[in-house]
């Protein structure tokens, strides 16, 4: 199959019950004009706010997630010269260590790919209507509201606490 720049054969964004296969998705980012790809995986961490997490459940307003994510991906393509952008978000029940969200970008050069990938994950976390219920070892399950912790606002990409941030380094040892 030949695809011109910007075309892709799978949906750019999806909410899915099935586990996210980052390696398979990344193959769709490939293009001869690309010299760079940046891929981000958010994982279910085994702790949050001092509590031991055993797993979590995502609930979503799926129609609105799809339309809002489409806007975010379009914004990324307008802001940076990138070739492909793909993203996936899980719904349903997840265990510790599972991939909860995945973003992949390819572009001619690395800076655009890094910037666009960071933008997409930050905006997805702040804007798509998804809610996370965490289950704990020794506390009742609760809906996580990240606006109430860390730096206090969802638009801040890197909160000082570990709440909701799955950026590399804080996820697993």
């Amino acid at each position, binding site marked *: 199959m030949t695809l011109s720049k910007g075309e892709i054969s799978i949906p750019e964004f999806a909410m899915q019950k099935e586990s996210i296969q980052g390696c398979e998705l990344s193959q769709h980012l490939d293009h001869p004009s690309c010299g760079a790809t940046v891929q981000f995986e958010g994982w279910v961490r085994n702790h949050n706010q001092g509590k031991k997490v055993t797993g979590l459940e*995502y*609930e979503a*307003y799926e129609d609105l997630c799809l339309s809002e994510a489409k806007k975010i991906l379009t914004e990324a393509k307008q802001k940076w010269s990138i070739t492909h952008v793909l993203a996936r978000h899980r719904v349903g029940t997840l265990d510790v260590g599972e991939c*909860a969200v995945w973003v992949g970008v390819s572009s001619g050069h690395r800076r655009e790919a890094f910037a666009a990938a960071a933008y997409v994950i930050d905006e997805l976390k702040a804007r798509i209507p*998804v*809610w996370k219920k965490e289950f704990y070892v020794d506390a009742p399950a609760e*809906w996580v509201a990240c606006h109430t912790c860390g730096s206090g606002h969802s638009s801040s990409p890197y909160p000082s606490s570990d709440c909701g941030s799955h950026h590399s380094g804080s996820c697993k040892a």
Partner: protein
Amino acid sequence: MASKTIMVRYFAELRELSNCQTEEVAEAPDTAAELYLQLKQRYGFRLELDEIKVAINGAFAHLDSQLAPGAEVAFIPPVSGG
């Protein structure tokens, strides 16, 4: 003001507190904000008006939006994706 029926969708903690996913509200007030406050009182929602967003007919809208008869309204608690 003629009475109007609104379809309300609940998610996350609002779904749990109301114990339903969707509900028809008859004789709804004029705006989404007024409707939320009415439901907050009925179900004991803990989230204040300034903590939620609203979607009307599948698109984000202002809380002071007027509600048309038959509209589908979803109140959006603070999101926590990713």
